């Protein structure tokens, strides 16, 4: 693990042309259709998108945590290991130690019949050859680290005896148990109420800085993304339509979908005005339109958009900014 962190310019996560389809007898769902990105150690990437856009599937594909009917293609490298070609056993070694995950529903993420402490020590002992007492001590340290009051007692509690926020803290402790270099967070604050949400976000950011982890954070909440991310990737119909530094994306979004998404958020200046919404609804993932998937809902759609999927274009003059739109910096002018 340590040698991976020292090599600063080597990305910790490298995803090339990731495609995930769910094949069943009557339909094929194209959940992810060609996702490319890299993640540097210690970087926070936020994947932003609406329900069903393939955010969670992308995240799970990074640790191959998908049901059997999922077919994954492309190339996923985490910490120098090719995730998609690892054996089950090697993959299990990787999960939890190198790459860990926080789930959306803390209420059902712990086994109800074991204490939370037991589940954390179990995970530590699964990956590292330590004694029971040592694992216990580590779990206690973790609970202190995620700011759970009276950690000794909480370790002995069952998950149903903890509050929602407390459970999510315990979940974070479980994910951090073996000091992963990549943390995946699948909408970890969605199931919590607003006051707890901000606490968890602040905690995550603090821990991320302290431990120097890379974090991929999936959310549909623009506010949350701005709060935590170094870079934001906007996902639509299984593709990243735009990826770039948080400030740039928020201040000058290039893709019409991102523009629509940002203008449909509520803030204090929108009082008394009508809330903007993007017309139409997301495409059917079993039958994606030919060409740009956002085309049917786009105000600026051009015949060329319907011909083929816009390629990933590097925005001129801005580092590390990709957009998949013919209008942005492309051959076409805004009509």
């Amino acid at each position: 693990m340590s040698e991976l962190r020292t090599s600063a310019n080597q990305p910790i996560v490298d995803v090339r042309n990731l495609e995930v389809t769910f094949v069943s007898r009557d339909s094929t769902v194209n959940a992810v259709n060609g996702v490319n990105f890299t993640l540097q150690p210690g970087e926070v990437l936020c994947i932003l998108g609406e329900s069903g856009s393939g955010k969670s599937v992308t995240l799970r594909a990074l640790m191959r945590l998908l049901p059997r009917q999922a077919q994954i293609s492309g190339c996923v490298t985490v910490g120098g290991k090719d995730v998609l070609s690892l054996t089950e056993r090697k993959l299990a070694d990787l999960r939890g130690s190198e790459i860990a995950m926080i789930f959306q529903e803390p209420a059902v993420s712990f086994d109800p019949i074991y204490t939370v402490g037991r589940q954390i020590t179990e995970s530590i002992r699964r990956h590292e050859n330590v004694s029971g007492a040592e694992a216990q001590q580590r779990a206690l340290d973790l609970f202190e680290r995620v700011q759970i009051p009276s950690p000794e007692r909480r370790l002995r509690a069952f998950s149903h005896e903890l509050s929602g926020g407390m459970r999510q803290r315990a979940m974070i402790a479980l994910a951090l148990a073996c000091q992963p270099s990549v943390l995946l967070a699948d909408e970890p604050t969605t199931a919590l109420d607003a006051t707890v949400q901000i606490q968890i976000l602040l905690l995550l950011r603090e821990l991320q800085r302290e431990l120097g982890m890379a974090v991929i954070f999936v959310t549909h909440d623009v506010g949350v993304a701005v709060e935590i991310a170094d870079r934001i990737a906007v996902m639509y119909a299984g593709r990243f339509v735009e990826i770039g530094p948080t400030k740039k994306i928020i201040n000058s979004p290039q893709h019409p979908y991102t523009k629509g998404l940002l203008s449909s958020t509520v803030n204090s200046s929108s009082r008394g005005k009508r809330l903007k919404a993007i017309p139409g609804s997301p495409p059917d993932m079993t039958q994606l339109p030919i060409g740009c998937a956002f085309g049917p809902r786009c105000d600026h759609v051009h015949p060329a958009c319907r011909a083929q999927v816009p390629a990933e274009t590097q925005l001129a003059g801005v580092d590390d900014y990709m957009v998949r739109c013919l209008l942005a910096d492309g051959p076409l002018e805004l009509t």
Partner: protein
Amino acid sequence: MSTSPLDPRQQATVDVVQVAVQSRGYWATVLGRILYDKVTMICGLILLLIILSTVFADWITFTDPYKANMLKRLKPIGTPGYPLGGDEMGRDMLTRLLYGGRLSLFMGIAPVVLALGIGGLLGLTAGFLGGRINMLIMRIMDVFYAFPSVLLAVAISGALGAGIFNAIVSLTLVFIPPITRVTESVTTQIRNLDYIEAARASGAGTFAIIRVHVLSNVLGPVFIYATSLISVCIILASGLSFLGLGTEPPEPEWGLMLNTLRQSIYVNPEVATLPGLMIFITSLTFNLLSDGLRSAMDIRYVRGTS
């Protein structure tokens, strides 16, 4: 919190103390709950009494359960030397009821235990693996399901011939499908829960997940279901003996005794109904016990709160 509003920090400590009182080990919590449940405790005690008195029948009775006495035929309850009367051959009813309980209980419990082993394994496999294997196992079970359980037990016993062993085999076959089905549905339900995925995400292998997270969560409900089947099994076993397909005379067994005393129901109804009463009490207590266990083992369910 009817008193003055507490500041958040204080409230947190109050919360902590309450939680700390509740948190004991899983089995300690379950035991504590059973001790509070009067009905379950009484049923448990009655059952324990029945089981112990049948197991130690040699020591608490002094007469031979096979020794007939023509003069004492169908004596009423309370005859000196015959505290519960005599049966149609003049044998002591009390002795025979106690000895008979051994067989009845054995034939009630053994098939369920066997079926729990086989059906549980099948259900776990079907539920966890899913897909074609699930299809195969569950459709085979459906074939057995198509017959009413009594009919199936009678048919299999009839084909195999009378005898205790054959009766146990047939009853086991009768109970495998329902146990498989319950195990399968519980397993499928648990397999899709987030904590299985969370366990996988923290590096647990398939076998470890089945052993630690699936099995221990499935075992509770399935075990309780099996306990409730024991009462059915006792009745079915007695039914088989009643029909002459289980134990054979002169072996004492509640179902068989009920059959042989059937003709005497007008002569001495109290004595003739005694074996039936025993079957009734035993299966009722088993049922109530399993019900009590069910509510005690579900630790998320807190009694008395809405």
